[in-house]
């Protein structure tokens, strides 16, 4: 069943040309049979069948999705049309798993799954950043993001997942450090101590990052890369929680909010969330608080699904909490500190379904004089270009910043803002690199980075 093409892939030593992301090892067995076997298992166990069954029947092929896809708008390649990409998976479903399709195929022949088709899916579903903007435009109600999610899950069971994600996840679930950035606990403690010193210098206050406090109101999970790359964000968050007198803690046994499972595997999603549950229960925390991160927050909402036993705590994003504290007058922001123009990027996972959209804006308006919106914004925003886990694939930086990040670069440039706020670890890395590679002026920050500059702490 092996076609020439798949042998060519094997020969090229793990590098897949079009998309150029690395995988760990090329699966050896017949990929077609494998794909169908995994697909069948997925349909048996998950809820995706209902959606697939419906999508194969309603798709009207109207091409409205093309108007909203940042990737397609950059490449103009028909293979990047969301509906084209979705059809790659839907055609497999229709042919092998739907009643009508399999009868039709028996009589008239037609589509057959091939090695080549699998190779195409392997590239295509990682060109999509799973931002789900096209979902808003599909009159047939097809969620192309869900199809990307399903296809990537099947591919992941075959070992066809970007190596960067697999390695991080393996460290998080099975490694010594238990987090995606492989930060040892000692290093974490060191860096928190350092941040506390910095905070003392900046505010004159003893602001702590409380570790392993039992019975706190909030257990805080940051996207762990923040401890390496986003010191200001973390300091801002600590300052807010300190100023408002919130009881919170960071668990030393598990402190990572990143969950790549949302991007490529429900198995991983569930396993990571189990770790979050264990740590939350160990410290008897009342609520789960997630730092500035879109996918981490959305994946944490799946705790409601994966929590074992009773008593799943409420899941709160730091933007929601800070907003609430500001409204209650428990924190004060000095409106004279930020005078430069500010714009706000909506992380897709927070904004697409109109979930956390107004809160950050209210916070920003409370202390930034010159706030401008990008167009489009809120639920209709464009992806940063690094969504769906692609930002973590370093070998495709060029693709990310020049192709999928092009739209964002244009948007930011138009605002002429000095500060670009992106309250998401993924978006931060991506937008920073995009601005650099596209020569866009301005400074990329988290929302709490700016809050840190403006917060008034009563002595």
């Amino acid at each position, binding site marked *: 069943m092996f076609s020439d093409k798949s042998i060519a892939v094997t020969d090229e030593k793990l590098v897949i040309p079009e998309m150029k992301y690395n995988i760990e090892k090329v699966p050896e067995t017949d990929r077609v049979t494998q794909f169908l076997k*995994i697909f069948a*298992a997925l349909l048996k*166990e998950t809820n995706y069948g*209902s959606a697939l069954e419906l999508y194969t*029947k309603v798709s009207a*092929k109207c091409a409205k999705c093309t*108007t909203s896809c940042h990737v397609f708008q950059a490449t103009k390649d028909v293979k990047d049309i969301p509906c084209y990409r979705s059809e790659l998976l839907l055609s497999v479903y229709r042919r092998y798993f739907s009643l009508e399709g399999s009868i039709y195929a028996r009589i008239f022949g037609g589509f057959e799954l091939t090695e080549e088709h699998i190779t195409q899916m392997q590239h295509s579903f990682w060109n999509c950043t799973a931002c789900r903007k096209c979902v808003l435009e599909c009159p047939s109600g097809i969620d192309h993001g869900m199809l990307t999610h399903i296809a990537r899950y099947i591919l992941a069971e075959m070992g066809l997942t970007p190596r960067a994600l697999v390695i991080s996840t393996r460290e998080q679930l099975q490694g010594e450090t238990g987090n995606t950035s492989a930060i040892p606990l000692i290093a974490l403690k060191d860096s928190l101590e350092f941040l506390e010193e910095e905070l003392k210098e900046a505010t004159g206050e003893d602001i702590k990052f409380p570790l392993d406090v039992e019975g706190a109101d909030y257990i805080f999970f940051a996207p762990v890369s923040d401890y390496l790359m986003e010191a200001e964000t973390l300091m801002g968050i600590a300052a807010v929680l300190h100023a408002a007198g919130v009881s919170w803690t960071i668990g030393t046994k598990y402190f990572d909010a990143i969950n790549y499972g949302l991007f490529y595997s429900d198995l991983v999603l569930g396993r990571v969330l189990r770790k979050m549950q264990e740590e939350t229960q160990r410290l008897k925390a009342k609520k789960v608080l997630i730092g500035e991160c879109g996918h981490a927050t959305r994946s944490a909402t799946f705790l*409601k*699904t994966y929590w074992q036993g009773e008593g799943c705590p409420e899941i709160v994003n730091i933007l929601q909490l800070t907003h609430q504290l500001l409204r209650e007058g428990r924190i004060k922001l000095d409106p004279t500190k930020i005078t430069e123009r500010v714009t706000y990027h909506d992380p897709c996972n927070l904004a697409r379904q109109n979930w956390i959209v107004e809160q950050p804006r209210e916070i920003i308006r409370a202390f930034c004089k010159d706030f401008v919106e990008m167009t489009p914004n809120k639920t209709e925003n464009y992806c940063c270009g690094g969504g769906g886990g692609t930002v973590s694939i370093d070998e495709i930086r060029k693709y990310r910043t020049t192709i999928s990040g092009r739209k964002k670069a244009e948007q930011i440039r138009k605002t002429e803002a000095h500060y670009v706020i992106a309250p998401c670890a993924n978006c931060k890395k991506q937008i920073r690199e995009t601005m650099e590679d596209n020569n866009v002026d301005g400074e990329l920050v988290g929302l709490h980075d700016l809050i840190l500059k403006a917060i008034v702490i009563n002595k």
Partner: protein
Amino acid sequence: MEDLLNFAKGPLFRFSFAVMLLGLLRLFVLSLINGFEAKKKAPDKSIPKGYVRKLTWGYLFPIRAFRTKPIYSLVSIIFHIGFILTPLLLYSHALLFSESIGFSWMGISLSKPVADNLALITIFAGIILLLLRLTSKITRSISRKQDYLWLLLLVVPFITGYVCSAVVTEPATYKTFLTIHVLSGDFIFIFMPFTKIAHCILLPLSQWVTARSWKFVPEAGENIEKILGKEGQKL
């Protein structure tokens, strides 16, 4: 010809109408069952109701239609109105209905000039849709055979119907056109539940089913590992 026409008008019509009704009903019920099944299997029952409602109504009625591709949308809406209203409200159709199933709505049927013009508009709209589809590289690249064939098939009863109503008077030609008219209508009914035209019954459910499918089954991941013989394996 006479026999064929009577067959198309009689038994074939009843058969195809039944296929359509039962077929669409089956799809609707199956999708409902699938959605509720998904709800049962997922511990998290909440869905973003406002969002689901907004998108469902927005596309069921042309509320969100003009956000993108406005020309296409306008033509498509005219086309839909044409091929849904004209046949339903035509006097001679109402007559057929009352003859074959003893139930009809002749009271609200369209006058002949209105119906004739609506038919022309529908034909025109269908042809524009076909041209739009054919002339853009984007739509061509995602179109399947049925996407073209449906537009062609859908205008056939309108062209022949118009010819019968407003062009020919000679009985033999009239019969021929009428036969094609009725036959194409029958085929449309038969194919509806098995092709993309199922959207006419499934669209109200699609946003809801999507939201339901996003609610996961907690054991699924580990069970899939078991099925694939990878139970307990490390990543």
